[in-house]
């Protein structure tokens, strides 16, 4: 029986986690894998491109309407592009309640319904690890291979470094199964961006898993409510996502990260900014 791969994509808000996750899931599915993508963000838009623009009902919507006992698998898992099965955790309205606790409750529902059954599960997790709830996929062993998405901008590196702190902290528990699998560079066009991200990855005891250049085709695909893999499968950008899928399904080196001190991180970013 093939080992289930449980991958989580973390990174600063707006850095392109959902775009990366959706295209990664599409590339994996097109290569013949059975893929489940779970959006863990109250914004609920992780799977939107896989669902051709449709915002699917979220697990939390259903819990709110029906309680957590009367939900069926068909109500929360939706087939998307290339057969990727899509789930959105959802959450409370902005400004009320506890979204972190919502993530925990979502996983309890998914577990009970046997939804977490796939060859590859891709978790797309909200911006930063803002509280224990958002670290839950890592803490409870749902997500075992963590990828950090970052650009060369200081704030994106800062968020990635923070998440590596969470992974390092969780790894102190001997039972912890979560490890850092790599850093994905999502270009914003800063000077020496690829090299900067590669060096950052190395400094936190990891490696650059992929570098996705900036390309207008991503925007065009999203405007057409598709992933790049569907909208422009022959494009160079689609090739980059396929390359990432190859890396992910290979044998990534899983490490316990060594987060950087903030001063060192600023110094590193500055050294590239000034050439």
């Amino acid at each position, binding site marked *: 029986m093939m080992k289930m791969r449980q991958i989580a994509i973390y990174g600063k808000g707006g850095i392109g986690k959902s775009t990366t996750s959706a295209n990664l899931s599409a590339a994996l599915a097109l290569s013949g894998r059975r893929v489940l993508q779970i959006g863990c963000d109250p914004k609920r838009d992780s799977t939107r491109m896989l669902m051709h623009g449709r915002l699917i009902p979220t697990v939390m919507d259903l819990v709110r309407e029906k*309680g957590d006992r009367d939900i069926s698998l068909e109500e929360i898992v939706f087939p998307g592009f290339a057969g990727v099965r899509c789930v959105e955790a959802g959450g409370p309205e902005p400004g009320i*309640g*506890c979204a972190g606790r919502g993530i925990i409750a979502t996983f309890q529902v998914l577990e009970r319904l046997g939804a977490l059954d796939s060859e590859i599960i891709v978790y797309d997790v909200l911006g930063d690890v803002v509280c224990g709830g958002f670290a839950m996929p890592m803490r409870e062993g749902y997500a075992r291979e963590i990828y950090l998405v970052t650009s060369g901008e200081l704030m994106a590196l800062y968020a990635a470094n923070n998440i590596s702190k969470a992974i390092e902290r969780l790894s102190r528990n001997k039972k912890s199964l979560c490890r850092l699998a790599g850093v994905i560079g999502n270009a914003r066009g800063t000077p020496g961006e690829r090299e900067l991200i590669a060096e950052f990855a190395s400094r936190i005891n990891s490696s650059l898993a992929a570098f996705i250049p900036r390309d207008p085709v991503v925007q065009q695909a999203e405007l057409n409510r598709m992933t790049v893999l569907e909208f422009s499968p022959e494009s160079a950008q689609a090739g980059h996502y396929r390359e990432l899928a190859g890396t992910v399904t290979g044998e990534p080196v899983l490490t316990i990260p060594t987060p950087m001190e903030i001063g060192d991180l600023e110094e590193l970013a500055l050294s590239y900014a000034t050439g």
Partner: protein
Amino acid sequence: MPAIPTRCDSVRHVGCAVSGALSVTTAVEGAFSLVHGPDGCSHQFISLLHSLQMDQGRPGIPRVGSSRLSEREIIFGGIPALSRALESVFRHHPSVIFIISSCIAETIGDDISEVVGDDSRVPVIPIPIGGFIGGGFASGVNEALIRLAARAPAPPREKSGVAVIGEKNLEFDADAQYLEVKRLMSLLGQSVTVRFVRSMPYESLVDLASARLAVLRDSSVQHAGKYLSDTFKLPSLPAFPTGLSGTRDFLEKAGNLLGCDGKAAAEKEHELQEEVLGSFRSLKGKKGRFGPIPYESLLFAKELANCSGIRIGGDGPVLSVPDPVPAGTAGVRRVLSHWRRIL
């Protein structure tokens, strides 16, 4: 924590702020206290108060309810559940409704004042103490006293009477303590017009604002005392009196604040104290020792041992002192009676 805990930092005053607030709000006659939190937050207090009331011959279930937060409300916010609970509380026709926020309600950012609308059926007083976020038991007591005092009307020109502030409603003999203070006030020709808060009708808030003097139960309610002083220009004595000289000092200070002859009252009390000590002559020359007790209790115990002629040594039986120390000359009599049984 220091080696010898004072009354204020001993574990008696550490604990749940919700319980502290409830210990005040449940003592308002006809009030209903609604805890915005999971059932457990109110259950614990109801059980405690119910047992205490049964012991005191006051049967009946305390009027405490819960918004019954569960995981669903934690995720999506608990204000709708609180609104529903509040609506059902109105059906009990309370004299006043208190809403007290628990740890989790404050953690998820629920604002309990949201449910207090323009509805004038019954006064609704939010106490956003937030469980551990607001501090310990004493913080809950102070916050509840202050929130309630804020509803008192403006003080009249002519003031009269004495207000007793912050009685410990979970104390088994709270009423005995109060009666002693009431007796001492009568020596000054004064009457206690309001017990803020014990068996107090909501309407009696008017007596709080019009009082001439506040007597605080002890230093754990000093924040409430400061509020009353700032708001109503109400002078206060910081604690119920304890010990022989402490009780006489209390009378003198109260007399000064009230503009009456405290010295004469203290002298009269001294005569009573001599009588009391005389009835415990058999203790003279007996040997006892003190166990680990708070500093204030130790000072009280030393004075009593000294005045009654008990020798304090290393091998006598342990002479215990209740915490808090019982008030006034009646408290002295009570402790000496206890010691006589031991010795």
